[in-house]
């Protein structure tokens, strides 16, 4: 871990958080000969809200897929809750990146939540009172009762995201992984989703790991951050990580962290900003 040469920030060690639900230790992943993740280590505790921040191509989706057991690491390990390997662990809820659902898909919002409960089982779902009540409670918990009987494809992005969250939570996981859930949402819907996730994390003691390229919508609720750049990561509390010196060492060139009216701007101060052309929010060009 130390050999990465990256700053070891805060309580980053594996014994660091008091009640870890997810521990990623020294994780490296290569895809098609390219090193996508390079010795990444961090942990997330129960009830914690952790932002996985990085520009496009930084390795966020790869990290999430590795935690889900969909991508095999080339080194390191991932431990979820009780010491079992994540591949065998049912305790992970997952909301994948941008799902496109056609408006004529004959599936109501409540049907998708039901699939979250038993979609992996074979056979036709028989209507059971227990199942119906579980779905009803989950819809209520995410504030989706009003549009529960509508085709999922006709819902707005924010509404679909809430249904996806309900579908991921109905099995009562210990860890909730969300891949860019705010990507296609307007500011108000994004704030609603973030607030919902923070409430669920706190109430149900679920660890939330949410990837985003812009950390600003997460600032009110995020208690930890994993910052990815070029496959490497630093982690800690937001104040510990999002600092000029720490991020400069992560990127390998000078970046400036500026706080303006409650927003954090990470400003690239060298020519290397061409690596991150898509992050107009987080990365502003220097003079």
């Amino acid at each position: 871990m130390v050999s990465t040469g990256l700053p070891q920030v805060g309580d980053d060690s594996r014994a660091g958080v008091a009640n870890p639900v997810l521990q990623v230790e020294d994780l490296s992943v290569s895809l098609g000969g390219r090193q996508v993740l390079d010795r990444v280590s961090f942990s997330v505790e129960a009830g914690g809200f952790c932002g996985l921040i990085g520009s496009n191509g930084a390795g966020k989706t790869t990290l999430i897929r590795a935690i889900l057991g969909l991508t095999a690491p080339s080194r390191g390990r991932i431990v979820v809750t009780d010491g079992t390997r994540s591949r065998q662990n049912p305790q992970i809820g997952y909301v994948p990146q941008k799902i496109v659902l056609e408006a004529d898909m004959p599936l109501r919002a409540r049907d998708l939540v039901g699939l979250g409960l038993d979609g992996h089982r074979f056979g036709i779902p028989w209507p059971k009172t227990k199942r119906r009540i579980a779905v009803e409670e989950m819809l209520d918990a995410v504030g989706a009762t009003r549009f529960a009987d509508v085709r999922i494809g006709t819902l707005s992005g924010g509404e679909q995201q809430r249904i996806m969250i309900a579908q991921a939570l109905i099995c009562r996981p210990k860890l909730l992984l969300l891949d860019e859930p705010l990507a296609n949402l307007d500011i108000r819907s994004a704030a609603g989703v973030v607030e919902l996730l923070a409430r669920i994390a706190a109430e149900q003691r679920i660890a939330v790991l949410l990837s985003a390229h812009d950390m600003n919508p997460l600032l009110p609720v995020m208690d930890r951050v994993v910052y990815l750049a070029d496959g490497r990561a630093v982690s800690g509390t937001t104040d510990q990580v999002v600092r000029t010196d720490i991020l400069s060492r992560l990127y390998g060139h000078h970046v400036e962290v500026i706080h303006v009216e409650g927003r954090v701007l990470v400003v690239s101060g060298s020519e290397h900003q061409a690596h991150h052309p898509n992050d107009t929010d987080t990365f502003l060009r220097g003079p």
Partner: protein
Amino acid sequence: MLAVSWAPLFEPGFFSSEPVHVALTVGAISAVVSGVVGVFTVIRGQSFAGHALSDIGTAGGSASFLVGTSTLYGFVAFNVVAAGVMELIGIRKPRGRDLATGIVLGASLGLAALFLYEGTISSSTTGATVNVLFGSIFTLAPGIMNVIAVLGFVSVSLIAVLYRPLLLSSVSYEMAAARRVPVRLVGAGYLLALALAVSMSAVTIGAILSTALLIGPAAVALRVATRTGVAIAVAAVVGVVACWAGTLIAYDSTVWAGGNGWPVSFCIVVVIFVLYFTSGVVSRLRADPRPATTSDLGRFVEPVEAA
């Protein structure tokens, strides 16, 4: 009263004709199977694969014509093998799926060209071509009904077993994979069900037209149903109605047209098209049940009472 008023619809001999019995039975079975499988075909965006399988079937149908067996066996053999090859080449990503389908389709149509040519040479008739491509439900041997029933049962059972994982992976392949659904196996099982469904509808309305029975009723269902189960039921009913009405029209047309009636496949496809058009009008006339939702985007800000 009712019976009397309906009588002119049925030309004499309709109910006592054995070819009509076979046609109605085979039509109903293949329509139900096509409806069940077709809904998933449309949901999964695999209409091209469905269409390709029906075209691929022409190679099998023409081969069995050469050999001298029922075209059904040729359809089934070629479609099942083709589905397997498509799965092997890689059917997961839409692009790979199209490529795999296109490659297998091209090769099979080449074979079909060869077999149909050989068939025409050897029998000096174009009957084989018309029979394979456009079907002739009135010329089926009665014994084929049992085979169709068994194949239909297998296909529908496959879909019933795969129902939930299939639906989940249709929503999101990644989500299903993360839930440890054996997504490739589920996809392969579905393709097998599709191959059987297409083979049956190829016997009913011909290899070229079997897509109509697969996609048409499913498309009608998706316009009117909000639930998967309801959509499947609607598609099955629409398919059966189309097959029976088409069979009736074709039978009656022999009387109206003085001996040479319209092909039954044509009549079935026309009924499907009319139903599709009508369903479009119906779904547009129906009020959208969806409540106004733009106002509740910020509802989360309200405190939610603890349980």
